[in-house]
């Protein structure tokens, strides 16, 4: 169980991004986080995975826990080793100048056991596309292949919890669908998943629970199915609200937002 308690995060000591977020991601479930740009989704994932320092961010209040252990102040390397919590960054975090095999080896850097080779073969079994490209530089492969490589690299860290930032970014709908199937499969095999997505519809369909982030706050939380039905979510995030067409002038988002808070 991953729980976040009243988390507040600032960048450069002044820019407040998360203003007190509390969330729970139950083990073995897919939790979906949706929200507009700048709502703080990526920052939340960075805070959980211990990457905030890298971006000059700071947790000024609140706590992040896996079970009973606090992740606060730990380095990303420690978090990966101790808790098996790996963050797959947005925009396909593969190393362009390394070959596919080297990418997987780099991701296994924190491990010292003898099963690295076997795990690598497992990844190639999982993604047969990559098998043909083993010696290819990752920068020359397609976006879909890179995202699969990113998942493969994630698997090389022996994870239990997956934080996935926008898997569908810049990918064709068909590939996105395939990716979501892979995430579902990982989840069925016991992986806890926290998924940040702009493609809210697809994400909520595979998710168990969902929450909506706005201006660094959780404004709505509930079972994914309930969110899919929710009027406001439908209008703002799924693009299918009221029947008749509205002009932007009439939309008055700010008034409707107020009702949530």
């Amino acid at each position, binding site marked *: 169980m991953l729980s976040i308690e009243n988390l507040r995060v600032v960048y450069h000591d002044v820019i407040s991004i998360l203003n007190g977020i509390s969330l729970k991601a139950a083990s073995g479930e897919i939790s979906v986080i949706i929200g507009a740009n700048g709502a703080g989704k990526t920052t939340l994932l960075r805070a959980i995975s211990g990457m905030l320092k890298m971006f000059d961010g700071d947790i000024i209040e609140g706590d992040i826990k896996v079970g009973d252990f606090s992740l606060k102040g730990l380095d990303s390397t420690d978090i990966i080793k101790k808790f098996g919590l790996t963050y797959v960054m947005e925009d396909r975090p593969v190393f362009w100048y390394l070959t596919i095999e*080297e990418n997987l*080896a*780099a991701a296994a850097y924190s491990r010292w056991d003898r099963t690295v080779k076997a795990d690598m073969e497992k990844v190639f079994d999982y993604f047969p596309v990559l098998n043909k490209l083993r010696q290819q530089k990752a920068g020359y492969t397609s976006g879909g292949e890179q995202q699969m490589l990113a998942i493969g690299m994630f698997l090389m860290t022996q994870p239990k919890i997956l934080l996935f930032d926008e898997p569908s970014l810049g990918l064709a709908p068909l590939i996105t669908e395939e990716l979501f199937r892979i995430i579902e499969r990982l989840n069925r095999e016991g992986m806890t998943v926290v998924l940040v997505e702009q493609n809210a519809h697809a994400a909520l369909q595979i998710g168990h629970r969902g929450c909506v982030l706005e201006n660094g706050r959780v404004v709505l939380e509930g079972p994914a199915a309930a969110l899919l039905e929710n009027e406001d979510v439908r209008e703002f995030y799924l693009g299918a609200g009221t029947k008749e067409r509205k002009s932007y002038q009439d939309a008055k988002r700010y008034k409707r937002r107020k009702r949530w808070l």
Partner: protein
Amino acid sequence: MTIITLGLASVLRSSVQLIFGAHSYSFFIELPNASLEYGDILFPSERVWAGGLSIIAFALVLFFLFRTRWGVAIRATSESQSKAMAFGIDARFILLMVWGLSAMCIAVAGVMISNFGALSYLTGSAGLRAIPVVLIGGMDSIGGSLIGGLIVGLCEALVGSYIEPLGLVGFKDVAPYLLLLIVLFIRPYGLFGTVRIERV
């Protein structure tokens, strides 16, 4: 880190001067004679040793970078620190390791250079010659630095024996930088700088 290194260099230089004095010591390592002679050309023994050892060091570095787990991690970190951190590579440790590795290479080079003759607190300034070598070869190309070294060495030697006698004393030390200027005009990444991967 670069600035810290430069600062450390001047601290070390001054402390060496304080402890050992500003005069030079003679310094020779007893090595088997390996001088080569081809017709008119003579390669003195210590230069042959220096060349051989630098090739060995070069091979070791290459092996380390391309065949070990740390090498992969170094190349990953050099591409993106944040990505490397996200996959559990301790970027700070890697930076320190690279720093130590370069210090080791420099130590080998320093011993070899002092073996050419005198050892004094100013021997370290020979390291400045690495700047045109690396820039001409291309900052991110490993083979490039080898070729760049040969180019700069040849340039210095030729200028030293053919142009300096014309009355341009000290031109030998300037020539590599002129060459560097020309190379940078034509190829800003250096002769063998990696082609950037760009997705269209």
